[in-house]
């Protein structure tokens, strides 16, 4: 079967790699084309109409964080000014994409070189998943992990 070209629109590097990994694990073969990423949700929100247009040419997968919005459908209603094209896939991480990482307990423990067991049975209910992830990184037994991920201020 032919590979399907797909565009990504994301807030940051972590979201980009979450999508790359998700698509990689998907049974359908995708070829990831240009990635639209300018830091933060403001850019994505403002450019949602443009990505909706772009999806007429090829599928667009956009990932954003729910953050303080109360629920995903509300966010979709706010961001979409025109009806959504079927090839525009707007996905919302509850509350943040970091929660998805916290769900992979064993992989996270290995990657961050943690002594203690990671256990977040319901990561989507966490108020601040980024903070939990930073706390874990800060307790890493490897200095390079602590230095590269946690900023002390």
């Amino acid at each position: 079967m032919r590979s399907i070209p797909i565009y990504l629109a994301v807030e940051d590097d972590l979201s980009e790699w979450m999508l790359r990994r998700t698509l990689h694990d998907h049974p359908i073969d995708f070829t990831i084309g240009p990635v639209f990423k300018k830091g933060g949700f403001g850019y994505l929100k403002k450019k949602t109409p443009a990505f909706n247009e772009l999806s007429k040419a090829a599928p667009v997968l956009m990932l954003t964080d729910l953050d303080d919005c109360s629920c995903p459908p509300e966010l979709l209603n706010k961001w979409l000014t025109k009806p959504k094209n079927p090839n525009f896939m707007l996905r919302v991480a509850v509350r943040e994409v970091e929660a998805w990482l916290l769900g992979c307990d064993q992989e996270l423990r290995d990657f961050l070189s943690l002594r203690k067991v990671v256990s977040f049975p319901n990561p989507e209910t966490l108020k601040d998943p980024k903070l939990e992830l930073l706390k874990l990184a800060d307790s890493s037994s490897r200095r390079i992990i602590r230095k590269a991920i946690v900023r002390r201020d």
Partner: protein
Amino acid sequence: MENGSLIVNRPDKDDKLDELRLTETHLEQITANREFRVLAEEFQKILYLHLVPQLLKFPQLANRDAAGEDPFGIRFLDRLMETPEKTRRSRLKKIESALRLAVPELQELRDVRDEKGIPHLEAVYQRWRPKAGRQREDQFSDGTLRLIGLLWTLLDGDNLLLLEEPELSLHSSIVAKLPEIIWRMQRAKKRQVLVSSHSADLFSDRGISAEEVALLKPHGSEGTEVELASEKESIRLLLEGGMSMAEAALPMTAPDSVSQLTFFD
């Protein structure tokens, strides 16, 4: 090749007998280019500029004789001095008035020759000291020198001009104005200017249309693929959706694996 048929195939048997022939292309050789010399001459007139400020400040770093066509502006000051005095002064005045907006402390830009007859640019930097001294080009900032080089070249001549990354060393607010500056200065002469750039600030100018932008995609040893932005459906749709040229086109040219670059150590 033309329409699939072979027109020229070099190197040929004559080239093998006389290696000196290989120092010039078919287009350059006056015995070979008689029928299309007009074209060859037009190519020769094309001006390419990528002024390297350090080479202007420290000419001893470069081999001046080897500079040939002077793409890096080593002989920029020589060329400037070869211009008739009246034209030169009037251009420098124009440049100074433009520079005053970008580098407010720089005043009285003028050309001088030192005791050895070597040309220099001089300007007064107004600072807190009431009697500030004059400074020469080796003390100008890289951005100031690049801007002077760019403005001079735009004022000089009317042949096809190739500008490589004119945004280098310049503040982003100045870079954002470059497309309009270039357009204004070439408009009267109907001069064609080709600019290569990666700059988001430069491509943010809303006056840039998709017909004016070509995307270059390198394919290693296979050469570079050139595609007009106006012929790309994806870019057309993004522009219709409200994106600027920078937002629509630059992600299309980013290397695929660029996010892995941070893991280099």
